[in-house]
């Protein structure tokens, strides 16, 4: 059947089983919008209030489900406003397909109204991008875009749609399958490397299994757990990997890195074997590279070969999908155990880790009246029984939540880990709540990041998206202030933001119920009431202004030189 490009887009999204799309209209995408509300029964469009919100919502949607998030914005400023969201998805390997409008093909390069070279601008922050130049190419391009976004190491793919392409007609034929000679991600690990890795895991006296976001992307959480249990491996998760291994598991070491546990970082640094699964030895994890886990042999499992050997030399590199490789490792371990190999006894190692943990657990001082932010996270965990989907913004509250909430399941923890984009938490929670209507979704945000995203209050009110917004409000850009306190001699240059709206009144202005807690005694009741309120709600918690996140590994310092308090 012949149809215009705009309709082809709608039909292609249907073929990709896309149910939800986040977007903002403008001149160059008006043909598409002309179709969108004619097909509202099949494709639910959420009108955000800023393009960045659309991208973060689509990212939250992807992070909470593993499905590909879809966003639609117009040309020029629509696209440039989306760039931060695209860069975020690129660094955190989230599958997104982003449709941007473009000026008509005959005007491209003409400095036309609302023209920006979006494929040029996003080349370095997309997995791949496309400019559709013929309407006949539209359907195959969309097919390829979804294929590239969600296979291999997932990532954002941008499809730039000139206005005339969405107006012209073509026969709609959606390709059933796809084969690209230039793009064939490896899924199976090399059997020889898998064998060597398993031998090392059986023999090691002081192993640590180090699990990143790649394990969640691959859906490998069950395999992670099975491997840890089978081979008796203490297991740590990165910021992006939280939930890939249950926090309450006896083998769990919690999070490592800049704000990781003392015992966790000590275990990693003193290990004789570090098995990395879907993690990339990021600078926030390793600290000073030359002092990082110097005595450890490194097994590095990653689907992206360029991650292996980039920061740390791998002794046993394994390129492949985390889930497939871990299944291979489990089978190989079974073979070796049946052939008489035994898992090394590690009593001394576990005893040592236990000692580190007792020496310096996570710690904060209760202070009577004043609300400690860590206490709020504890209470949130207790009241939600650890079951909530939690989206954090960026800063101190993000780290306290990562340290203290205790994530048991994958896709329960959403945050902007790689890019560290303030303004992520609330719109990401919005996307997650759209994707998972049965789950309680809480956005834990700071007062700074919330002021970069609160335009979306109108969106959650319009569609009654039941996000519970919890503001950890200290009137500071808290993490900036902490660094200024610790590393810049208390010079609080432009980090005090106590001039801010009254968030309760702000919520009410948008038509949203809102509550506030100002004293420690009010926290429990306020959280309970807020979380029990149906629909979207805002909870403003006024916390101690100058609390610090500990431990902290100063930027560029070695893990062993972390500051404990």
């Amino acid at each position, binding site marked *: 059947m012949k149809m215009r490009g705009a309709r082809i887009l709608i039909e292609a999204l249907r073929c990709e089983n896309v149910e939800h799309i986040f977007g903002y209209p403008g001149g160059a995408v008006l043909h598409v919008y002309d179709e969108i509300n004619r097909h509202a029964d099949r494709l639910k469009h959420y009108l955000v209030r800023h393009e960045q919100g659309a991208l973060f919502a689509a990212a939250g949607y992807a992070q909470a489900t593993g499905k590909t998030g879809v966003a639609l914005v117009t040309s020029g400023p629509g696209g440039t406003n989306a760039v931060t969201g695209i860069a975020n998805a690129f660094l955190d390997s989230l599958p997104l397909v982003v449709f941007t409008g473009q000026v008509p093909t005959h005007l491209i390069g003409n400095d036309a109204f609302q023209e920006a070279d979006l*494929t*040029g601008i996003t*080349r*370095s922050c997309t*997995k*791949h991008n496309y*400019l559709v*130049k013929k309407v006949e190419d539209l359907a195959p391009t969309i097919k390829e875009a979804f294929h*590239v976004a969600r296979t291999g190491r997932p990532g954002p793919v941008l499809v730039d749609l000139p206005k005339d392409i969405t107006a012209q007609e073509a026969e709609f034929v959606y390709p059933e399958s796809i084969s*690209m*000679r*230039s*793009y064939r991600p490896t899924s199976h690990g090399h059997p020889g490397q898998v064998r060597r890795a398993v031998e090392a895991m059986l023999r090691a006296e002081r192993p640590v299994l180090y699990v990143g976001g790649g394990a969640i992307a691959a859906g490998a959480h069950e395999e992670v757990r099975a491997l840890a249990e089978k081979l008796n491996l203490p297991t740590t998760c990165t910021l992006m990997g939280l939930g890939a291994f249950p926090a309450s598991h006896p083998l769990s070491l919690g999070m490592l890195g800049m704000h990781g546990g003392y015992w966790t970082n000590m275990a990693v640094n003193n290990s004789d074997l570090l098995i990395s699964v879907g993690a990339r030895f990021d600078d926030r994890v390793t600290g000073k590279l030359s002092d990082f886990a110097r005595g450890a042999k490194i097994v590095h499992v990653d689907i*992206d*070969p*360029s991650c292996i*050997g*980039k920061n740390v030399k791998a002794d046993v590199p394994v390129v492949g999908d985390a889930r497939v490789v871990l299944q291979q490792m489990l089978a190989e371990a079974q073979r070796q155990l049946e052939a008489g190999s035994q898992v090394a006894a590690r009593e001394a190692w576990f005893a040592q880790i236990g000692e580190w943990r007792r020496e310096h657990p996570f710690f904060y001082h209760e202070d009577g009246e004043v609300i400690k932010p860590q206490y709020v996270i504890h209470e949130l965990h207790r009241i939600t029984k650890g079951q909530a989907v939690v989206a954090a913004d960026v800063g101190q509250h993000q780290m306290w939540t990562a340290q203290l909430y205790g994530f048991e399941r994958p896709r329960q923890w959403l945050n902007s880990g790689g890019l560290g984009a303030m303004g992520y938490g609330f719109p990401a929670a919005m996307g997650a709540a759209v994707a998972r209507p049965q789950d309680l979704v809480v956005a834990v945000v700071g007062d700074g990041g919330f002021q970069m995203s609160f335009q979306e209050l109108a969106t959650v009110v319009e569609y009654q998206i039941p996000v519970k917004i919890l503001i950890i409000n200290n009137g500071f850009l808290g993490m900036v202030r902490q660094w200024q306190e610790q590393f810049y001699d208390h010079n609080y240059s432009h980090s005090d933001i106590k001039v801010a709206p009254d968030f309760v009144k702000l919520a009410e202005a948008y038509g949203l119920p809102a509550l506030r807690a100002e004293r420690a005694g009010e926290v429990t009741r306020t959280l309970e009431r807020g979380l029990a309120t149906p629909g979207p709600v805002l909870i403003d918690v006024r916390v101690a202004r100058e609390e610090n996140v500990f431990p902290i590994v100063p930027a560029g310092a070695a893990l062993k030189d972390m500051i404990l308090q």
Partner: protein
Amino acid sequence: MRHTISLLVENEYGMLSRVAGLFSARGYTIDTLCVGPTLDDGVSRMTLTTHGHDQIIEQIIKQLRKLVKVIKVTDLTERAHVEREMVMLTVNAERGEPRQEVLSLVEIFRAKVVDVSTDSFIIELTGNAEKIEAFIDLLRPIGIREIVRTGTVAMTRVAASRAQPKGNEETFSQLTLNEKV
């Protein structure tokens, strides 16, 4: 160390910028770059030379392979291959002795005079980078008015006996691919 890397890429909009952008975004350097068509209209060949220590080169190759529309990346440095670049020079050639000296250098280097005026030649020379450097050094005292150089192009040597690929599958598959395109 200097490396010569050969890429087969989809002949699509923006490919050059994807490759060049990768180098600039990650702080690698391109010393020379040549792009041209192959026998398949849909495929272009890029040959680039770069330098860096082993870990950098490994990253460059992995990052190039990661580009969605790059079909094949080969580091030719470690294998038998032929490299050529071309230079054109406008050289002073006054009547008499200088003119004879230039012509004898042209003869020795198997270069070609492609344009003649009363006091200058345009000379064309192909060869590997060392040969071209040597030629330029010898002409410099005589007076080079202008110089235009291409980048390096390179090709894997075909094994002397094609019937016996010596079990070297990598070379063999490269060979088949070259034949296909």
